[in-house]
């Protein structure tokens, strides 16, 4: 009787251990596999729409997982790789961030006066901002929309606590101040595999290029 009880308990414990390991494998590996595939498909759909589509956005009609959310831009960061391209989607909810980079509600549109603020995963779910700490002042961040492509230049970074929303204010760290510049802010978690802090990178617009004159090859170097 005791033997069977102890044996059964042992099996349960081993099962629990295997389940935890499986969860880690799912989180650290499988979410990347799925997210990389999805994000690539959305970028692909956006690129096609930018060239000969309708309104320059991609929604659930083309990609059911998007649900109510719409992808409307492609973000390219040469420092993260020549081919690095991820979709930018309205909102920063969990489902959005699994499908790309999220645009904070209420922050400026790409290229507009104010702060175009986006969030992306540092680890897991395709980890678009995995190497955000490698960005240096002067590095290019390209935000491609249908009518216009916006080239930003990294200016600075800071590490803050998660509740410090002033980093995405129209003038970063000066909430309440009216903006005059066209800025960019990228947020991600920090350190890697933790959510204790946020790694925040700021940039400013250096060039707006109409779609007709846009050639990626001219802008694919890390710095201007």
């Amino acid at each position, binding site marked *: 009787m005791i033997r069977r009880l102890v044996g059964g308990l042992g099996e349960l414990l081993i099962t629990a251990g295997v389940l935890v390991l499986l969860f880690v494998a799912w989180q650290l590996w499988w979410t990347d596999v799925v997210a990389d595939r999805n994000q690539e498909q959305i970028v692909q759909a956006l690129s096609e729409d930018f060239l000969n589509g309708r309104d320059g956005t991609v929604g659930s009609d083309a990609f059911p997982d998007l649900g109510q959310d719409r992808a409307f831009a492609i973000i390219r960061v040469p420092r993260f790789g020549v081919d690095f391209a991820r979709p930018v989607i309205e909102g920063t909810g969990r489902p959005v961030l699994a499908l790309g980079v999220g645009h904070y509600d209420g922050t400026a549109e790409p290229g507009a006066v104010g702060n175009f603020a986006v969030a992306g995963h540092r680890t897991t779910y395709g980890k678009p901002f995995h190497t955000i700490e490698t960005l240096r002042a002067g590095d290019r961040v390209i935000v491609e929309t249908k009518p216009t492509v916006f080239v930003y230049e990294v200016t600075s970074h800071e590490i803050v606590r*998660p509740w410090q929303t002033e980093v995405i204010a129209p003038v970063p760290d000066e909430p309440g101040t009216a903006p005059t510049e066209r800025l960019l802010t990228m947020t991600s978690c920090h350190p890697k595999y933790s959510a204790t802090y946020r790694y925040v990178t700021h940039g400013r617009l250096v060039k707006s290029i109409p779609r007709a004159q846009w050639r990626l090859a001219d802008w694919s170097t890390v710095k201007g």
Partner: protein
Amino acid sequence: MYAALWRVLPGPVWAKAVQCLVLVVLVVAVLFQWVFPAVADLVPFNDNTVG
């Protein structure tokens, strides 16, 4: 628990092994597709937004 499962499965050893494998694949599929995504919403280390 697993010994009982092994006894219940019909057929020779190789058939039992194949059935076990199928069961494992099924369980992992259900976990990856539905259970783990639900659990992941409850753990905080994936947050990367401010606010």
